[in-house]
């Protein structure tokens, strides 16, 4: 029993953290909002050079063959900076899907390109209604009526829907199923879709925790500087308690996330329930961070100029991404309210 990350995992997290915080500043995010695609090839290549795109690609395809557990701390960091590049979709959803879908040719064609940073592959699941980042995908893997299709950009029509979060790009995608390459159907497709959904929910949960931490940090800084009644407003107990409430809930959302990552990486039978636990509490704490952060910012928090909103809006957008609360609660309920469920002390691991 060892519920800690390895030295290597923590060191890699630190270097990715340094890189992301230096590169993806709020100013950089604002500049990207004004570009046509909102995405940046140079940035993607930088991430590939750090090994982020190759991390989950199997070694035989030029990757490092690492797991959800190796990625989860990095996903928190991408949330912290509100990264908009589809790194998590490509590395955590598309890559394992290509690895597991049983199409050796497709895997051989795309996984090396993912690893080198040459391709963005995007998975679009029906649970999300719209497909994120379809406009910058070199390959789309889309769910339709219980089957999975692989599509190149020329095979799809995109209809953009602006999100409240200017960093998110969402599209309705139309394609002709008869002409598309069907890569899975039936039971096989369901398993792949469920796995992708779990990984998507894990990625969102991890980012939500990063966002919550970012909103705490911004708010602590702001309330330490802003003075009223002759004192920093952060010295007032009412303001302190707003932040303390987020901080303590954040602590208890972290371990469910790490356990979920471990369970996915090790194909534990309860992995889905563990992901649902992580997703529920992570989105709740990010939501609370947004609510309390705008409150302690006062009118400044209601403006476009103050950076808080880019993190707040991402948190709102994530609430129902890869399963709204009801979806995840139903999975938890199915476990704990079923006959013979082993609950209580000693049945956690």
């Amino acid at each position, binding site marked *: *029993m*060892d519920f800690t990350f390895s030295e290597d995992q923590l060191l890699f997290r630190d270097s990715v953290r340094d890189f992301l915080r230096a590169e993806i500043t709020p100013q950089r995010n604002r500049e990207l909002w004004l570009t046509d695609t909102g995405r940046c090839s140079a940035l993607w290549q930088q991430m590939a050079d750090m090994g982020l795109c190759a991390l989950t690609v199997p070694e035989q395809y030029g990757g490092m063959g690492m797991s959800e557990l190796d990625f989860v701390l990095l996903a928190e960091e991408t949330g912290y900076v509100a990264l908009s590049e589809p790194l998590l979709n490509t590395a955590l959803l598309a890559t394992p899907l290509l690895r597991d879908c049983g199409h050796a040719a497709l895997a051989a064609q795309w996984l090396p390109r993912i690893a080198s940073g040459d391709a963005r592959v995007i998975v679009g699941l029906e649970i999300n209604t719209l497909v994120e980042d379809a406009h910058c995908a070199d390959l789309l893997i889309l769910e339709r009526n219980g089957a999975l299709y692989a599509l190149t950009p020329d095979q799809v029509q995109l209809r953009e829907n602006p999100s409240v979060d200017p960093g998110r790009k969402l599209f309705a995608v139309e394609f002709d199923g008869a002409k598309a390459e069907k890569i899975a159907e039936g039971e096989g497709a369901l398993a792949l879709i469920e796995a992708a959904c779990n990984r998507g929910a894990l990625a969102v949960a991890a980012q939500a925790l990063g966002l919550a931490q970012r909103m705490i940090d911004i708010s602590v800084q702001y309330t330490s500087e802003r003075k009223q009644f002759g004192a920093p407003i*952060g010295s007032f107990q009412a303001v302190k308690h707003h932040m303390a409430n987020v*901080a303590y809930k954040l602590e208890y959302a972290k371990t*469910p996330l790490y356990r979920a990552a*471990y369970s996915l990486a090790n194909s534990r039978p309860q992995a889905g329930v563990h992901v649902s636990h992580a997703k529920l509490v992570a989105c709740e704490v990010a939501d609370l961070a947004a609510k309390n952060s705008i409150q302690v910012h006062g009118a400044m928090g209601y403006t476009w100029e103050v950076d808080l909103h880019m993190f707040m809006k991402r948190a709102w957008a994530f609430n129902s991404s890869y399963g709204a609360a009801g979806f995840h609660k139903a999975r938890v309920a199915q476990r704990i309210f079923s006959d013979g469920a082993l609950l209580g*002390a000693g049945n*956690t691991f």
Partner: protein
Amino acid sequence: MNLNYTPKQQAFREEVRSWLAANVPVQALQSFDTEEGFQQHREWEAKLYEGRWGMITWPEAMGGRGADLLEWLIFEEEYYAAGAPLRVNQNGIFLLGPTLMEYGTEEQKQRFLTGMATGTDIWCQGWSEPNAGSDMAAIRSSATLSEDGSHYVINGQKTWSTRAVWADWCFGMFRTDPASERHRGLTFILVPLNSEGITVRPIPQLDGLPGFAEIFFDNVKVPVDCRLGGEGEGWSVAMATAGFERGLMLRSPARFQETARRLVELYRANQQHVDDDPSIRDAVMRAYLDAEAYCLTTYQTACRLMQGGKIGAEASTNKIFWSELDLQMHATALKILQCRGELLPEGPDAGDVGRWLDGWLFAQSGPIYAGTNEIQRNIIAERLLGMPRK
């Protein structure tokens, strides 16, 4: 990360389980806040000690097993799952014991730890005073060193001393330097409660039982070798570095996980008539998840400590989390019980519902004692988040 128990840990769990199965009293003991129940619990402590289960993390020489924190968590899981009696000497074994090991002289360790482990000496705390609650540094009860340096003379009043009514000893902080203020000039002293000049006035708790008391000190003479740590060092002894480890031992996740398990059972048995209020199902689920999160975080902390890690300020988050969880779980249970939720256990039609009411009454104290949750939030804001003090 490896979330599997080792064969050794599994074998340890089996050993605990079979001992408890053979030894936990079939008939539940009376509340330790009654005279008879107190005695029953004292006997249970002696039985645990005989089996070397009294304090498994203590060294073998002191009647323990030298167990590590993960084994402690496993032990607690089995202990709560078996429905074993509450620990009447928790102030001693969980709070004073580790402090004694760190700050006590060899003579003090020999003298106090064994009596504590066997249940011969039951301990209560003497921290709070009528004007020193959340503001503990406002302590005014005094201890004056006699001219020959052989003993202290204690005067003053302590309050909210849990288990003090039938306890044998009290440990607490007293002001030894009358000119001192706040955290300075305080000294940690162990006081036999049968000393001349001590008056214990029981205070009935919310359930009507005298679970805590006021202690009045009127020229109470205590030998100087009952001082723990140096004179004037009381504050740092009390805030000992082992602080969180003690917290970890005192509020086992197992306790809350068992409550959550019983809550799920209660909900399922009454589902027909409570699903009219969908918030109940949601709250039951939430209780289960939060109890599990508390367990996960405690395991993570235990692993980190065992690898030589230090506890950070994030440890201050646990008090709020478990105390609010405990309240929420019992509030939900009472909603499920509906009209039966107000019945005391002795009522002829109460069935086993009274246990939930008991728990509900007890849960009211959680957000208040051991530093109110408001104080905890201040600590989190200032020490974990770095928000300005002034």
